[in-house]
């Protein structure tokens, strides 16, 4: 019989839960993780990681069709979609088993099953674990962290059917490439799938109810992305209203109103990417002080739910829906439980990345939001066309934009579009987290030749003027 008494039990083994468990073990807490599906959660199995494997394939496909620019020639370029998908699954599998090893190494007990609150034993929390409806164990812990994550929001009439209408899950394991694809929703998930399928050769239409794509990004960046996608051959309909859907044998017809016109569309597959909802059901929250607001658990700055001994982190606990936010919250929450002094997360210091082509990355406030917040701003811009490395790489399209507070020199926000920007945004995140001002950023020596020099230039552009434009 497994041990059933712990200092901490984490419900959910995604990037929030398993990281929290490892940190708890490091701090000497007897820790268990209860996971109903796969260790690593959506991120590792059906999200961040496998999509990056797919997007890498689509970039290679794009490159293979532009070999001439680099002096190469190849005939009969083709791909086997099954193998592309298989690689993506292998990557996910490799990392999921890696999480298992990490937990084992840290002596974290893993329970395979569904965890739900099951009352109290004195001040200790009880948690029931069931597998396929059958009880597996009842665990007792001083503290519980709920990290059950979220799932795709389902719009009425657009319920995923596994065949014509896909959620992210089906979209990640296509058996064949749809000729015509409709993506509903232009957030990070929708745009990444649109980018993957477009670069693999599908005809892609993106519809967005709001008046612009990537609505959380800086308007200028969103507009550049829009232009780049249209140039790649995507159709984008913003301010769109979707009419009733008619499913055919192997296609879907619908009308979309946008820009004062009605577009009659017939596509082979539809991807619905219209946001997420928290996995709050069947967690045994009834009768506790845990508050659920629009499918997410309400928590304070230290992830405490208000119910003694119960904490919630990650997607379950509210936006932004990002794996790195979940992991960071997991660590902070565990340290708070262990009695350490912790610093609540500033949402403006959480970077966001979208791995479409061109990539998009940002941190902090958009220019519009900074102005709304009453800041007098200084804005710097530097295009990739002025960057030697970007040109040498054949990636001359991109922009780095900085937004500073004109009075204090605080870096309010940074917004980037172009090659490799997701790997570079951390520079600005460090600047924000360390509260650097334009002075330190100006004095930092950036290596040459790198695309990161554009980040330096975008700082200079906000003040003395960029050097290479």
């Amino acid at each position, binding site marked *: 019989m497994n041990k059933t008494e712990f*200092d*901490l039990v984490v419900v959910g083994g995604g990037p929030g839960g398993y990281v929290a468990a490892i940190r708890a073990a490091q701090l000497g*807490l007897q820790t268990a993780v209860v996971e109903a599906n796969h260790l690593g959660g959506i991120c590792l199995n059906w999200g961040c990681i496998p999509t990056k494997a797919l997007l890498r394939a689509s970039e290679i496909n794009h490159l293979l069709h532009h070999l001439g620019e680099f002096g190469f020639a190849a005939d009969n370029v083709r791909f086997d979609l099954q193998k592309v998908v298989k690689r993506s699954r292998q990557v996910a599998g490799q990392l999921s088993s890696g999480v298992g090893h990490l937990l084992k190494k840290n002596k974290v007990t893993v329970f395979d099953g569904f965890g739900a609150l099951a009352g109290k034993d004195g*001040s*200790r*929390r009880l948690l029931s674990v069931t597998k396929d409806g059958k009880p597996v164990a009842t665990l007792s812990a*001083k*503290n519980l962290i709920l990290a059950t994550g979220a799932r795709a929001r389902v719009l009425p009439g657009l319920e995923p059917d596994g065949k014509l209408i896909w959620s992210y899950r089906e979209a990640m394991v296509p058996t064949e490439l749809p000729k015509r694809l409709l993506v509903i929703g232009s957030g990070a998930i929708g745009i990444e799938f649109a980018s993957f399928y477009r670069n693999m050769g599908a005809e892609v239409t993106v519809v967005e109810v709001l008046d612009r794509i990537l609505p959380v990004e800086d308007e200028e960046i969103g507009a550049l992305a829009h232009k780049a996608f249209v140039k790649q051959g995507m159709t984008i309909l913003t301010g769109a209203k979707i009419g009733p859907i008619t499913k055919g044998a192997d296609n879907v017809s619908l009308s979309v109103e946008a820009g004062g016109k009605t577009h009659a569309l017939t596509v082979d597959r539809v991807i619905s990417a219209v946001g997420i909802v928290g996995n709050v059901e069947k967690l045994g929250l009834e009768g506790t002080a845990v508050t659920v607001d629009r499918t997410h658990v309400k928590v*304070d*700055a230290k992830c405490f739910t208000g119910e*003694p*001994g119960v904490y919630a982190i990650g997607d379950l606990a509210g936006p932004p829906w990002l794996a790195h936010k979940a992991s960071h919250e997991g660590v902070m929450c565990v340290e708070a*439980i*262990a*009695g*350490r*002094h912790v*610093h609540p997360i500033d949402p403006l210091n959480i970077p966001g990345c979208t791995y479409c082509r061109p990539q998009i990355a940002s941190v902090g406030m958009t220019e519009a939001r900074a102005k709304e917040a009453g800041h007098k701003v200084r804005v710097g811009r530097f295009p990739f066309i002025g960057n030697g490395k970007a040109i040498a790489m054949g990636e001359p399209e991109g922009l780095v934009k900085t937004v500073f507070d004109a*009075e*204090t*020199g*605080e870096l309010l926000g940074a917004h980037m579009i172009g090659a490799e920007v997701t790997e570079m945004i951390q520079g600005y995140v460090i600047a924000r987290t*360390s*509260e*650097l*001002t334009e*002075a*330190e950023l100006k004095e930092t020596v950036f290596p040459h030749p790198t695309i990161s020099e554009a980040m330096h230039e975008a700082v200079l552009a906000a003040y003395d003027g960029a050097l290479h434009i």
Partner: protein
Amino acid sequence: MSVNILMPALSPTMTEGKLARWLKKEGEAIASGDVIAEIETDKATMEVEAVDEGTLGRILVEAGTEGVKVNAPIAILVAEGEAVPDAAQAAAAPKAAAPAPTVGAAGATPTVIAPAPVAEVAPKAGRVFASPLARRIAAQKGIDLGQVKGSGPNGRIVRRDVEAAVAVPAPAAASTTPKAAPPPAPVIDVPHTAVPNSTVRKVIARRLTEAKSTIPHFYVAMDVELDALLALRAQLNASSPAEGPGAFKLSVNDLLIKAVAVTLRRVPKVNASYTEDATILYDDVDISVAVSVPDGLITPIIRNADRKSLSQISNEAKELIARARAGKLKPQEFQGGSFSISNMGMYGVKEFSAIINPPQAAILAIAAGEKRAVVKGDALAIATVMTVTLSVDHRVVDGALAAEWVAAFRSVVESPLSLVV
């Protein structure tokens, strides 16, 4: 978790006191060390400092309430964003407030695994760890980072700490004049004894720092012959009944209090205070008399000294000074006043300059009377002479006016009949 803020005991014998006023409002953020309220006892007004940080959730005892028992809950402190309980919770083990004017508090703790929370590393004296943004905002707002407690990693001062320092209102008794932050504490590494500062000491430090750093002082000194005044004193004391209610024994100081009061009537523009909008000219002449007490000094007030007889002033001064030394003055007996006197004559002091007692515009420093050789006509003579030095606030009193005042004072002292008529 919410904690009760308890009525502190300001002295070992204190059993109850008056909650004079709140310096923080409900919903306001409180940092450890913030002055949150003022408590009055029969001795003095004392400041209550917060021990814990959080948000002032609810005030349980309104300002102005008398007879608040020591250790009774007076407010509830909650964590940021936490719901505010309506009433004080039954504190599991209320940590009684120490004799020091601080608030102890303890509350029921939730089920946390918790070893005691590890406190942030306090910033060390010497090098200040602060983010570049914090440094810049501090420079722009005139905040001394040496006085700011850091809440960032390893106690580093970050933006929110500086912003919190900017937001803290000036302490209670301080005038509206913005106060420069005191310099960082020097590092003392030679053998020494650290005597913790009493609240009185802190109040003195704060008020005098404020006075000397915000009031443009200047000084006018003059020698004054005392022989006529001493003769009058001897004459008057000889006329006192030997005992009974009418008995009196005038000190030189009593006569000088009256002389100052009479002079202020003659040159009333010195009986004043400076404010941003206007110069305030006081109707009454209320003389604050500096009295040294065991842990500092205090200034009991002889009100309407110009209208009181010398014997009245004498009896009142004796009584006030005795009670001041016993620590039994009521706040209204030492708060206010329109002009101050500091007399160090009894210590044989040749001359000295005093620091103005804000919001007053002037203070008279009185040194010892001694026999000196003086020139009268064209001959040397012996006279009893003292040097007085008037410290004045140049915002209210200009040089000529100050000179006029000391000349008038000399005239009153040297022709002292105006003290009795």
